[in-house]
């Protein structure tokens, strides 16, 4: 039986063994037919992963083999999509990319030269030292880097980052999150750039000499009620004694701490078959453990990826650049000499316009993609806009901004933000408004798509006007103006039910006087 390659995917023989796909002589993806595909005439059709599709246009050589490369199932020149160029999965700088085990497109160590690999390993070592000396936690090498070191004595060919874990002494999720905040603070103080991925997972960003940024994940591991949890999403049985005291392992000349019983850890992570290479491996995490980790540690960045995709992708140009009609309606109502803060600024179209009118302007958003766009545009246009991250799903972030704004009078402006927030984040928008507007008498200007939530593009949802009014009033605010009528959505396309609100948060004594 043969393999067929088409725009739809790969038609392969049904089987439970992984297959490896190369394009233009480079590894791009691995798959397991019966798991990833659907029965079709002539075998199993495994669709191309979505992340690869933008690259699949042109002519080039596609090769499908077993993981060792000894059994070749397909090796031929094919034409895919409408393109006539060369078929290759490369980034803008020409670096080869492949699909990693969580489905993202990344550079793998197979395409990383020795000097860069050395930088990654030295950076990982420095991260372990900083975590121990400055953040007070002992980290061990784990996941792909541990598997490579134990099984093959080198980095795995298809891996693209390094992962560290630390075994927390705490057994209450709240303490584990608080510890992760302390780690974040300590590592930032050591000069690390990082992203907080959840209440127990920090991503250190290690810049490499080839222009790429390597991610070093620092995951919490802990026991709660006898169950072992380790981020990403692992849970099950693994005693403390399998991890501590650490042993050490050498990887390309660097010595790393690893769990006391590395083989027990690898069996916990990858199952009893961990010694057999399987580049298409996927975790089978117990759903009860995932639910717990989601509830304890996650929730503040669930939709961040979707927005980053918008700001870094072609759809961004669908958002008009000039001011929205709402901004033009708000401008004459802004306080004399008072600054304005565009909350959920997006592409910054309105913030940049306010700044151009000569008003002191701030712009905040939870998406780093958005902040990058606004900074670049402001710089290009010679405008001064104070750009900062505000995560309304995080109480700390909300309180920190609220405290600052309480002492620096602003009006708040939020266009199509309300429809992006979950209940907790919406409550924190009212908290921010109360903190910011009570002392100075500033106003909150809102525009939102009104109505019952229905199917949406996953970005902005409709919100019932009653819910918004009730939230404002419950937090001590007063709705001064409210209209619902035809207006524009985020892309300035017509929307039949757009609500405009102006609200104030009078100081308690001035409310009594009214």
């Amino acid at each position, binding site marked *: 039986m043969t393999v067929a390659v088409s725009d739809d995917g790969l038609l392969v023989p049904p089987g439970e063994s992984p297959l490896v796909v190369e394009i233009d002589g480079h590894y791009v993806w691995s798959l397991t037919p019966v798991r990833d595909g659907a029965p079709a005439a002539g075998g199993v059709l495994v669709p191309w992963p979505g992340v690869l599709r933008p690259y699949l246009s042109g002519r080039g050589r596609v090769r499908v083999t077993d993981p060792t490369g000894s059994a070749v199932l397909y090796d031929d020149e094919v034409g895919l999509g409408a393109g006539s160029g060369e078929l290759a999965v490369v980034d803008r700088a020409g670096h080869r990319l492949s699909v990693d085990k969580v489905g993202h497109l990344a550079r793998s160590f197979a395409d990383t030269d020795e000097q860069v690999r050395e930088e990654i390993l030295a950076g990982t070592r420095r991260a372990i030292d900083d975590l121990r000396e400055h953040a007070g936690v002992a980290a061990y090498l784990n996941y792909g880097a541990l598997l490579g070191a134990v099984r093959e004595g080198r980095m795995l060919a298809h891996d693209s980052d390094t992962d560290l874990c630390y075994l927390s002494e705490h057994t209450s999720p709240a303490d584990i999150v608080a510890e992760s905040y302390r780690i*974040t603070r300590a590592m930032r103080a050591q000069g690390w750039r990082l992203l907080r991925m959840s209440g127990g997972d920090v991503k250190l960003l290690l810049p490499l000499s080839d222009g790429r940024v390597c991610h070093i994940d620092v995951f919490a591991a802990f026991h709660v009620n006898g169950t072992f949890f380790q981020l990403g999403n692992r849970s099950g049985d693994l005693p403390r004694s399998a991890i501590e005291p650490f042993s050490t392992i050498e990887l390309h000349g660097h010595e790393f701490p690893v769990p006391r019983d590395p083989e027990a850890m690898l069996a916990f992570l990858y199952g009893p078959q961990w010694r057999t290479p399987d580049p298409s491996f996927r975790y089978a995490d117990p759903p009860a453990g995932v639910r717990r980790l989601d509830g304890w540690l996650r929730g503040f960045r669930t939709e961040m990826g979707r927005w980053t995709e918008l700001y870094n992708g072609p759809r961004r140009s669908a958002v008009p650049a000039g001011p929205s009609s709402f901004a033009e309606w708000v401008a004459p109502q802004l306080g004399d000499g008072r600054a304005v803060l565009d909350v959920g600024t997006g592409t910054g179209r309105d913030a940049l316009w306010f700044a151009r009118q000569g008003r002191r302007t701030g712009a905040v958003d939870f998406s780093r993609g958005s902040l990058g766009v606004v900074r670049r545009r402001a710089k290009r246009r010679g405008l001064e806009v104070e750009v900062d991250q505000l995560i309304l799903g995080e109480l700390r972030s909300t309180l920190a901004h609220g405290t600052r704004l309480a002492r620096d009078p602003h009006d708040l402006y939020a266009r199509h933000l309300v429809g992006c927030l979950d209940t907790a984040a919406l409550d924190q928008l009212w908290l921010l408004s109360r903190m910011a507007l009570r002392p100075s008498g500033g106003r909150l200007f809102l525009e939102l798509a009104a109505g019952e939530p229905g199917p949406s593009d996953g970005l902005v949802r409709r919100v019932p006007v009653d819910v918004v009014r009730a939230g404002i009033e419950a937090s001590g605010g007063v709705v001064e103006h409210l209209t619902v009528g035809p207006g524009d959505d985020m892309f300035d396309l017509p929307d039949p039910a757009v609500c405009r609100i102006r609200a104030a948060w009078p100081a308690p004594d001035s409310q009594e006087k009214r």
Partner: protein
Amino acid sequence: MTTTELAHRVRAKIRERGTLRERVRVLEAEVQENRQLNRRIAELTDVVTELLIPLEARDQERVDEVLGRFRTGL
């Protein structure tokens, strides 16, 4: 038992199961809500220990410094 009685009992059982399924769904949502308090507690703890204790000193220069550091360290 007549066929009609049996049919009644079967229908009642099915209804009961439907109600139980709904109750489990609601309970699961409520459990998840409670789990989310962990992050809230951690955030409040962080604010109290990192901010409120230094702010209590009421030294404006120190207050500005502490607020600035808190924001950049999040």
